[in-house]
């Protein structure tokens, strides 16, 4: 766990964000202590930017070493974690803080439509909404990305040209992930070729739950490879755990480390397609994981809670968690996203309330 010579590495391709070291103590935590013989973190860190590179071979050299690593992570006490998330949820965000947080939240939204009934018209309308969320108020910020299925990427890309809004595509047989690897890779490559800036992949929960961690790891590295473009750049990879299916917090912590070790640029809670999606405790746990990962490796990874976040009040709670767990470094759309659809209009109504002093209503925001 030497820190000497560490360079904070960014997996982000565009744009480059500088990460100033904060004044707060931010020192490495010895999660490696129980597998110290297996992996040298300095090696890992040095190789981390090229995520699938040789530095990972120590941890992921075998099923056994990977399992030992993941099972050596400290346990998560469910009651304590949930109590902490609930306590952060009681922060009272008012006036100027609320105005800041609402605009920040809007700018962090991956505005999403992932329906079998999606059409070109629907996706275009959503893109219009994303670039100009509140027609009555041009000061409302744009969303971070539009998130669609691969076959809608080209449509979205076209509609968003010149806006700076990213096009995110789910891939890898989303949402179940139940397809052969070549199909998943083709799905990914197709989305990248169509112009996707970001790929939201799902892990194989069946493999994870049956303990085949190395399969999950290898699949992530393969998808990461498929994210590469001919010009040498890469689409940005978000890895979805479907935490509602992983069930335990210990599993979520293990999945987080597994994905980060395999080169994830973002870790994401959920597809939004199962009964339990993003929750504050699960997200808090993932925030702690990216915090600890950076402390050990120097590599910063983003977090995206998705599904079930519908109100401004919910969004505030998540931003408070980011603020108090990670601080300024993650308080940008480059490192934190909301996967959401109906959230945007609630944020806009609250924004109108702050601007006008009157409560708004659903007739005063657009439906797209």
């Amino acid at each position: 766990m030497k820190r000497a010579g560490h360079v904070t590495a960014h997996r982000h391709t565009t744009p480059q964000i500088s990460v100033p070291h904060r004044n707060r103590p931010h020192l490495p935590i010895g999660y490696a202590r129980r597998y110290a013989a297996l992996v040298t973190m300095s090696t890992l860190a040095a190789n981390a930017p090229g995520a699938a590179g040789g530095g990972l071979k120590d941890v992921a050299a075998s099923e056994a070493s990977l399992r030992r690593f993941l099972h050596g992570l400290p346990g998560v006490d469910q009651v304590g974690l949930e109590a902490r998330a609930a306590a952060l949820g009681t922060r009272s965000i008012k006036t100027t803080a609320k105005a800041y947080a609402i605009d920040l939240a809007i700018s962090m939204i991956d505005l999403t439509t992932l329906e079998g009934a999606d059409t070109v018209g629907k996706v275009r309308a959503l893109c219009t909404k994303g670039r100009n969320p509140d027609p009555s108020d041009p000061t409302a910020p744009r969303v971070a990305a539009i998130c669609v299925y691969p076959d809608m990427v080209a449509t979205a890309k076209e509609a968003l040209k010149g806006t700076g809004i990213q096009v995110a595509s789910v891939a890898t047989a989303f949402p179940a992930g139940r397809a052969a690897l070549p199909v998943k890779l083709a799905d990914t490559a197709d989305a990248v070729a169509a112009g996707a800036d970001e790929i939201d992949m799902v892990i194989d929960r069946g493999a994870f739950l049956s303990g085949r961690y190395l399969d999950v790891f290898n699949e992530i590295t393969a998808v990461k490879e498929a994210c590469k473009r001919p010009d040498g750049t890469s689409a940005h990879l978000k890895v979805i755990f479907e935490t509602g299916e992983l069930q335990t917090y210990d599993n979520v912590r293990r999945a987080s480390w597994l994905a980060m070790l395999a080169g994830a640029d973002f870790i994401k809670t959920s597809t939004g397609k199962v009964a339990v999606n993003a929750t504050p405790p699960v997200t808090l746990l993932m925030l702690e994981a990216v915090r600890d990962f950076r402390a050990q490796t120097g590599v910063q990874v983003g977090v995206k809670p998705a599904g079930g976040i519908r109100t401004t009040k919910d969004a505030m709670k998540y931003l408070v968690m980011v603020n108090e767990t990670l601080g300024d470094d993650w308080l940008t759309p480059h490192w934190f996203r909301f996967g959401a659809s109906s959230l945007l209009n609630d944020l806009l109504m609250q924004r109108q309330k702050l601007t006008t002093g009157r409560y708004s209503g659903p007739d005063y925001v657009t439906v797209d």
Partner: protein
Amino acid sequence: MAKNKNAAEPVRKSGLFEYAPAPESPAAAGDIATSYGHFINGEFTDSSGSEALKTVNPATEQVLAEFAQGTDEDVDRAVKAARKAFADWSALPGSERAKYLFRIARIVQERSRELAVLESIDNGKPIKETRDFDLPMVAAHFFYYAGWADKLDFAGFGAAPKPLGVAGQVIPWNFPLMMLAWKIAPALATGNTVVLKPAETTPLTALRFAEICRQAGLPKGVVNIVTGDGRTGAALTAHPDVNKVAFTGSTPVGRAIAKQLAGTRKKLSLELGGKAANIVFDDAPIDQAVEGIVNGIFFNQGHVCCAGSRLLVQESIQDELLDALKRRMATLRVGDPLDKNTDIGAINSAAQLARITELTAHGEAEGAERWSPECELPSTGYWFRPTLFTGVSQAHRIAQEEVFGPVLSVLTFRTPAEALEKANNTPFGLSAGIWTEKGSRILWMADRLKAGVVWANTFNKFDPTSPFGGYKESGYGREGGRHGLEAYLDV
């Protein structure tokens, strides 16, 4: 008086996401009178003496109200009123006593915002805690003991256990209304009547509670509140017609009361000081342990008798744990108790601040290494930064004496046996904490710790159903749970 503006400014670190002030309105505390007498026999009455004390808002140093210094004569009047009320109250069927207590519980719930704000103003503790902890606990305690009032036959003390008579109760300033509830609820449920003296720095919620007794229609004289300082307390505990003394406070005062009561027939229960070990093993759930350590020592500004003031950490994880703890401490928000985002409020009094300052200075002088996060403190009021001492050994005063403030002493150990030995190596024995994912170790440690309450993978948890109290010089008798009834029954 109620319009008292709290001058304390919220203290913020720089950052992108600054929380704007979110102050609770002081007006929600309701009207605070300029001066208060005692509540005796269902009425507010003047003291027989002329001496008045002042209670101040510790966050602003502004005087909130004057209140009477209870004289021997005041105490005598209150005890007489309680004695007179005892006959009817103890003869009332338990099911009827229960309904009075249920009423009190409900009115506390209804008026909880008012009481929470009043408590924050008078005590200095953050509104977050009075709102989310103190007041819900107060109501829950009355609910729980209300239910016992008609079930004493089933409590394990034989058929129809008898009350003791008049209870003289002296409570501290750290959880004023909650301590009142812990004292009054079991006393009334078992058929006793009470004379209660709140602490001289925090009398206001007890006086407001008197109004609640009236709203509940509680018979006159069943609850009497006499205010004043230690002299009033001594007069109460010494009163010959008091059958039961219950005291929560410092060990020296508890010792003095025990001496005072020697040779009398008065039943005594004492809940005194502590120097709890919070023991973290290398296989602990680290993030939750850090929260537990923070909650253990910084909850209520560390004004908690069972605070986890000695952190015993396994040497192999000392560095990483302390790094994580410091990082977490840096996010604690110290400032205006009425701001809903304040984590650590004001120290309750100038005297307590002086004691904390003195003991921490001594800690440095003894060679322990002191650390506090950077945080600005308001210019008026009584404040103390959350503070960590490393390199502490058992021989240091800060490892032995109760600081009763936001000050954590960190010691290390190598094996469970050593942790146990150090944890028990104190005249106190109120509480202890254990952090490990290994269940059998938790139970092995819990079995051997000489402490009245042992928390495992949590800390500072309270519930009306759960007995609380200490071993050794932390006192005797238990409050809460079925066991809490015994202190008020002739068994």
